[in-house]
């Protein structure tokens, strides 16, 4: 089943991508999915629905806020916007993600590791 592959994302990765997308511009759920899929060159096959539990978590943590409005295609949509707390959280997460990635890269490529 496809949804077990989608789980390959590490926990919190989806939230991180949502926050990053929202920092660029507020969007509603469907637009967010489109955006993430396009930006990742369709490498990340996110199950569309799994966006919603993630959005609810972010809402609950007050990292994003939501408002009903009308979209460019004249559709009643719920638009999400990142909050100040969301931006702070995103920056922390990105830097810790980068450190983690650096660490993983060092382990995977020991030749490139500095003085040892």
């Amino acid at each position, binding site marked *: 089943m496809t*949804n077990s592959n989608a789980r390959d994302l590490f926990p919190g990765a989806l939230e991180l991508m949502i926050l990053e997308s929202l920092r660029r511009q507020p969007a*509603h*759920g*469907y637009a967010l*999915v489109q955006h993430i899929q396009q930006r990742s060159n369709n490498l990340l096959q996110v*199950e*569309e*629905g*799994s966006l*919603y*539990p993630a*959005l*609810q*978590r972010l*809402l*609950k943590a007050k990292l994003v806020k*939501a408002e*009903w409005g009308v979209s460019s*295609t004249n*559709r*009643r*949509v*719920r638009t999400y916007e990142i909050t100040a707390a969301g931006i702070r959280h995103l920056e922390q997460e990105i830097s810790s993600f980068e450190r983690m990635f650096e660490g993983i890269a060092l382990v995977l490529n020991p030749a490139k590791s500095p003085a040892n």
Partner: protein
Amino acid sequence: MSWILDIFRRRALYNDLSEEIRGHLEERTEQIMREGMSHKEAEQAARRAFGNRTVLEERSREVWQWPTLESIWADVRYAIRQFKNSPGFSVTVILSLTLGLGANTTIFTFVNALLLRPPAVQDGGRLVEVLRHDAQASGIEAYSNLSYPGYADLRDHNRSLSGFAAFDGDGRTVSWSHNGQGEMVYGQLVSSNFFSVLGVEPALGRFFQPDEDKGGSSAPTVVISHSFWQRRFGGDRAVLGRVLTLNGAGYTVVGVTPASFNGVIIGFRHDFWTTLAMTPILIHDRDRMGSDTSSWLFGVGRLKPGVSKNEAQADLTVLTRNEHSSDRHAAVMDATAFPLQLMPGPVRGYVAAFTGMLMAAVGLVLLIACANAANLVLARATTRHRELAVRSALGATRFRIIRQALTESLILSMMGGAGGLLIAWWSIPALLRLTPATIPVSIEAPLDWRVFAFTFVASLLSGIVFGVLPALRSARRDLVPALKDGRQLAGPRRSRLRGSLVVAQITVCLVLLISAGLCVRSLINARSIDPGFSTHDIAVAQLNPGGLGYTEAQDRQFYQLLLERVRALPGVSSASLSDYLPLGTSRTVHDVQIDRVNPPPGQDFIPVQVAYVAPDFFRTMGVPLLNGRDYLPQDAEPKSGKVIINQAMASHYWPGQNPIGQHFKDHQQTVEIVGVAKTGKYRTLSEDPLDFMYLPLGPQPQEFLVVRTGAGEDAALREIRKVIQNLDPNVVPMEMETISQYMALPLFAARTTGVLLAVFGSVALLLATIGLSGIVSYSVTQRTNEIGVRMALGADRLDVVRLILKQGMRLTGIGLVLGLALSFAATRVLAGLLYGIKPGDPLTFAGVSVFLGLVAFISCYLPARRAASIDPMRSLRAE
């Protein structure tokens, strides 16, 4: 407190979410349609891309919930809805568990009361109970109490205890004279540091001063118990300073104990405490305090910081051995320390073994109840498989379904546990009434937190035990056939599991019933054992005018008048006195020398148990005199040297001779045999014939009055009480009872075990019957089609009955065989409680097996008959 707001906003949040997701799907569908698909195809594609909408929506909602708590609550509500749909099932399961858990809770309440409840003292873990122990003896006889000099020595010289107190091992029944009347109250003699070592603080007033132990200077004082204060003084604070006349002497009330404190030894009711120094005054025993050989005190020590119980025991042992170094038994007397508990250390093991056996019995009852519940849940699961299949198809995970099933069984078991507590609450007072009414024991058996915790854990475990198997089973199923036709065939595996549950029930039930059968038969045997005296139409009173400080002459006069007046009462045919009643708790043994007879190896004398009796004792008690004569009043004169022996002693030492007129030495006095009485039971009902002799009774402070009455012993008891009151209102009979009430004590253990096992056995039988007939009825329902086909093909009613019976009786047969094997092992445990019957008694084994087989047959036959009345046409049409 945003979570509170969340709860109220939740519905709005959920609606938003649903609308949002719908919008998402529409937008995706439109986009796919733009790529050239039909509306229908596009819709399906959009849903595929989205994933399982139900699950995702649920997960999104869960973000706003306390996930576990709320989904458990949802499970609970769902479960209760299920129970409402099938009340018959729920009630049966709950009742089964109520019986099982009720029996367990009841017995545990007693275990708790006897062994677990700690005394109400401060930091009880640092308190030790100190006794002496004879390293060469074994069992309970090896332990003895401390003498006062022995206690004082340990108190003054030990290095391991920060405080060492002592208390009288016997409760004292004392006459409290007030308003010109005597009232029986219960007291205990304690060292003056008793309360301070225990760390108990007075609720009112003070406790004893350190110097009050030494006696002499200070006036006698008492501390009274909170309940006595409330009961007799209405909780009046002015009780301090009042003088109570106890056994003829005045004691000033100085303090009241807290309500929680009721001494540190189980079973006694305490109305007051006074100091050991009062021993000569309170119980008129002048020699006791100075005596090395009177063992009557329990030691209670508080360990010094850093000292362990074993270190203290070693320290005290050294002192004890030194103390006895001049003694013949010197090196073998050790001190021994137990953690202080309400049940004295030496008997804890025996009580634990007895109650443990009862716990095992009720554990078996609970197992049967669980097997029953499991069976019912399994049966119901087959009718619910479609519901479960639908739930799985809608995205319920395996874990979720197991959790739901377990939630249901836990709710049932918790309700059973609540029912069990109700049963215990109702049955404990009834059981306490089984204790002999005349003994001043007060066992408190409260339903405290330990009992609640036990019942909770037992319910939880039962719920898991009977719920887990059906739960795992319900989650492991093939969805497609279940969804397709909604019917499932009774698979061989399922029925094998249920069958083995029934086998287990029959097995356990047989073990219980055989044990109960043995106990009941032994009880019948015990009742028919001839104790050697009459067990009806006798009234008994125990008197202690000596406790009031009577002189010997006053004593003599009191008893003489008493006998005269009692004999004159209507309906009384004879009355007598003795210092002993057979099968009682006290025992006196004399050293006897008989010419040409060698004493037992290793001893200088022949030990013979003895009782002192007044004239007419034999006639009154209904003990036949086989030879010779009864005592005459003049035999009671000192140096008269007359003795009456029992038949066992006569045939032991004067075989083939006429014992009348023979002489032997009792201690240093030569006595002449004037009579031979029939051998009776003296210590226990199950004993072999014992040598026994009766000596003439002189004036004694404490005596039994025995009165032969016509019918109506109770009326006679009231008359006798009046006679005693008229003689001296301050003499309070310590025990007044009919002989049949008196006999309750020797039969107590056997009777209690018999009653309890009979009750448990009946419960087990009831549960096993429900289980067996349940599974047979169920299989009849399952096999309706098959039976219809068979009948259509020519099977007659008898064939059908046989078919169904065969299944049930096969299970019964296996259960009976296993049960018999297990019973042979299990009933060994009962050996010590049985009178006149062997644990492996073949008659009981066979009888109970046949009985259980018959009951099983009936519970299979009824559903079988129903099967036989199936109309083949109708059952086939239903196909």
